[in-house]
């Protein structure tokens, strides 16, 4: 199994199960044991996951990927010590982020729901033509890519969170905005789109939205 097999789902499932940090170790870049160079996919996934973590208010530092060979035991030790130190400083998931357990649950759940979509996005929009560390870094760290990602993800993520929130009970637009720390006008926009898509319905009596 290759580090490229490390699915976005593995990462978010780990956080959802209460892990405070996730570390991915892969073979050294350009030294593939297969011919796939799948560790570059692991690198791309790391960038994507970090961006998504940022969107749901979780410190992206809680995810780390490092590449080393079988003979680099000292590096693994160094990275592990360093990473556990960092995570210890951040504390349990949510604490340094100021997220309650309920909020965490909804946010992570909404992120996980986006994963199949993100796999498609990765293929269509986020693929780096050249397999070099430099090309990956400059692509994923560029303003354009970040912007593109934000555009692609933020609406989907907001709707996903709203739907999860409405699962428990019907809420008004302002309740939703407050609950998810979103702009009320954005929420109205999402509510319109979602009701047109038949995902939710509006109850005129209570002024609340509920799942359709």
């Amino acid at each position: 199994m290759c580090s490229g097999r490390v699915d976005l789902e593995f990462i978010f499932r780990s956080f959802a199960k209460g892990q405070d940090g996730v570390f991915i170790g892969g073979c050294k870049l350009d030294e593939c044991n297969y011919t796939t160079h799948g560790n570059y996919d692991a690198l791309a996934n790391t960038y994507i996951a970090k961006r998504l973590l940022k969107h749901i208010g979780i410190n992206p530092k809680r995810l780390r990927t490092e590449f080393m060979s079988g003979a680099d035991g000292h590096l693994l030790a160094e990275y592990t010590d360093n990473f556990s130190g960092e995570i210890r400083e951040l504390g349990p998931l949510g604490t340094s982020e100021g997220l309650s357990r309920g909020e965490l649950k909804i946010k992570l759940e909404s992120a996980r729901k986006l994963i199949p979509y993100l796999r498609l996005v990765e293929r269509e929009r986020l693929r780096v033509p050249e397999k070099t560390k430099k090309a990956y870094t400059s692509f994923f760290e560029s303003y354009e890519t970040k912007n593109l990602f934000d555009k692609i993800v933020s609406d989907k993520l907001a709707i996903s969170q709203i739907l999860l929130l409405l699962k428990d009970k019907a809420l008004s637009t302002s309740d939703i905005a407050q609950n998810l720390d979103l702009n009320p006008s954005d929420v109205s926009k999402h509510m319109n789109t979602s009701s047109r898509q038949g995902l939710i319905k509006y109850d005129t009596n209570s002024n609340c939205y509920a799942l359709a």
Partner: protein
Amino acid sequence: MTFTEVDQVEGEQGDFKIRLKTKPRYIIEEKCTGCSTCTEYCPVQYPDAFNQDISGNKAVHVYFSQAIPLVAYIDESCLYLKDKKCDICRGICKTGAIDFNQTVQKTDINVGAIILSYGIEPFDPGVKDEYGYGRLQNVVTSMDYERLLSSTGPYEGQVRRTSDREHPKKIAWIQCVGSRRVTEGDNSYCSGVCCTYTQKQVILTKDHYQDAECTIFHNDIRSFGKDFERYYQRAEAYDGVRFIRSYASIEKENPENNSVVIRYSTFDDGVKEEEFDMVVLSVGLNPPADSRMLADKFGIELNAHGFNKEIHSNPVKTSKPGVFVSGAFQGPTDIPESVFTASGAGSQCGELLDYRRGNLSRERIYPPETDVSQEEPRIGVFVCHCGANISSVVDVPSTVEYALTLPNVVYAKEQLFSCATNSAQEITELAKEKGLNRVVLGACSPRTLEPLFRDTLREAGLNQYYLDMANIREHCSWVHSKQKEDATKKAQDIIRMSVARAAWLEPLQEFDLPVNKTALVVGGGIGGMTCALSIAAQGHEVQLLEKEKDLGGIARRLDTTIEGMDVQKHLNDLITKVYQNPRIHVSHEATITDVSGYVGSFVTTVETEGQIKKIKHGASVLATGATEYEPEEYLYKENDAVYTHLELGEEIAKKEEKVVNAETLVMIQCVGSRDEKRNYCSRVCCSHAVKNAIKLKKINPDMNIYILFRDMRTYGLREDYYREAADMDVKFIRYEPEEKPQVEAVEEGGRSILRVTLPDPVLGYGLELDADVVSLAAAVIPSETTTKIAGQFKVTLSPDEFFKEAHVKLKPVEFAADGVFLCGTAHYPKHIQETINQAYGAAGRALTLLSHDTVVASGSVCVVNEYDCVSCGACITACTYGAIEFKETPKGKKAWVNPVLCKGDGVCNAKCPTDAIVLKHFTDEEIFGQIDAAVTDEEIRKQMDAAFEDA
């Protein structure tokens, strides 16, 4: 058999009687598990030979961490062996492996052939005072430095100076130490590997210490290997790395800081002295120290340098029939050449002994497998003490107790050494007795022992994929020796995760694919024919395809090699042998139109002389060769006195007057190589130029011959010919790529001449040469069919568009696609002997496949759930093995995995938007099981409560 030497050799090819002498290691190999507890308790500190005596080791130790067999030995520093003072290790060893009564053992064996792979001895700079080695503390050899850089080295990967254990900041490398020198004690030849290994050391140093200043004092930079030119550029591009072309001598040591002063000179600054914190001597390769003695023992002839005396038509042979030679005992060689000469020697032994193939092999019979897939998981957990390796840190009994509390675990037990034969048997028996259907081993890394324990499960009638190994040694006890309590907890965590995964494990079938015994060889040059003959000599049918009307390839245009081998005679011999061999079937004017199938059963469709042939074969060898670049520069094609080296060679062979009677002849090297368009060295041209120059000088000693070069790359033993040419007054003038020579045709005194001008860095002013003939070292480029054939066989190309081997060092004749092999110049430019070596190598690898009736494909491959597949093709683009394709199904076009081609990396899994593609043995459920079990619910609740209370 390690620790063993050949004592006596008698007999002939096919029937050698050999007496072996095995030195006592004072350890019973079968009993030692390599746990190293003895080393820990041994009181004797002794210089560690593996780490160049820089750091210490114990009298009893495993030679190095990847040693095979992973078994300790006791050296002469042992107190018991000296005067029976101490036998602590004997008391410590729980398997009773220590045996001080061992003596030298003599064994007689009977073999049909012998392969000598004696390798090299690094040059010892201590033999010459001028190198300062042994005299100045901070002068080390490249071997020393190699160990310093290694994470298993003397300072665990830290580079430190001998004098003060500080990290050196300014490091100098001196190249050609012991090589390319005719002085007493040095070698006249080029060692061939030092330029590139130095660049590797520089890159690793910069990786270790970003601000290190690295200076390399060198003669020619010989980056003649595949991808070496780019590697050189990478090393050179670092900040703080200087490559200085100068002779460098070690002047003195600064008494204050033990730094070393080097004296050198450059064109710009003249003679200079500079101080370095550390100096690395890039030492060359010597033949084995006792090579003369070995030669006598085996009855083989050596050359003047002490390497095997090459038989040019077959460098794997020695002068004694039945004795073969592989690796650097042929002469200085790099890793890929060592690997393919090894396979080549194997193939030649096969030619000799094919009639006895398989006589000594025995088949294993396993009990029939029970189908337990419908049963509830019944997991057995075995926790290994590994002597004291695990149990001195991890509380094994309480871990066993803990395992019993885990879901689905019905049995748990501790074992002293799970890998010992009796323990493995115990697992087999208990599995049957307790009705276990899955086994978790809390022991070591699956890398080494998983095959053994899979076997144990098979013995119990269980599917071998019902095993999971929880690595509580490398991942736990070895790294947490000081945190016993936490380590025990971690071991339990690891086992809990493993148990969770085990519950999801599925039985998987490995399957046997039949192997068609025919080989297809594409390309009828020296490489293809040599390979075809070697395969045919081992009883296999060979289909040999040649795109031209005649066999021979580019070698048809070569008269002799630099060593004097008659190429045409050799070629004609080969061609005759090919046509006379009833097993070799040649197709002329052949074009491949289609290739289908996979390892063991390919079908290749060929158009040949107006016919269509469908060839079924089990293995494919691609030997499609290379061709010569047609220069667009230096008036080539415009002026008929401008030749390429190949053409010049042909003219010399014909004794063409215009050429042999020329007053002045200028050769220009690197035409179309080592530039932006072709960023590689064509490897053969320097020797080619020297060969032509020597020939011309022998015919016409008065001829003025100039060779304009960038770096002379007459690597290995060819260096002697470079020197011979210089001694014959052939003039070598270096030029820089920024200031290439200019050639113009002028008329002077009624005579047409070619005026070659170039700036000379040594003279400092422009140089003007009036030549009658100009010869160009035109690049070696891949033949035009390479790209098409690569596509047909689903193999890849390197950036320079030669075939890309599976691994540049370790798999130089294989492709990543199973069952497809390569050799010759289609791989990279190379000399004829190198092609012959590689052709035998490819034959050897092909035989490894063809000599079996079946190949086994792993059970851990991907499979598509058609119902979930949305036909997006994401998996297909992710797979570099070409293992996935669309297939028409009743539900429409769906992805389908060819299990034979799938290598089980699982990259496709992470790409599938619907989770339709699944890597067996690493399924989502299995991994989710592990993830979910990583932290217990209870633990999470506890932590969360604590955190939110604080907040």
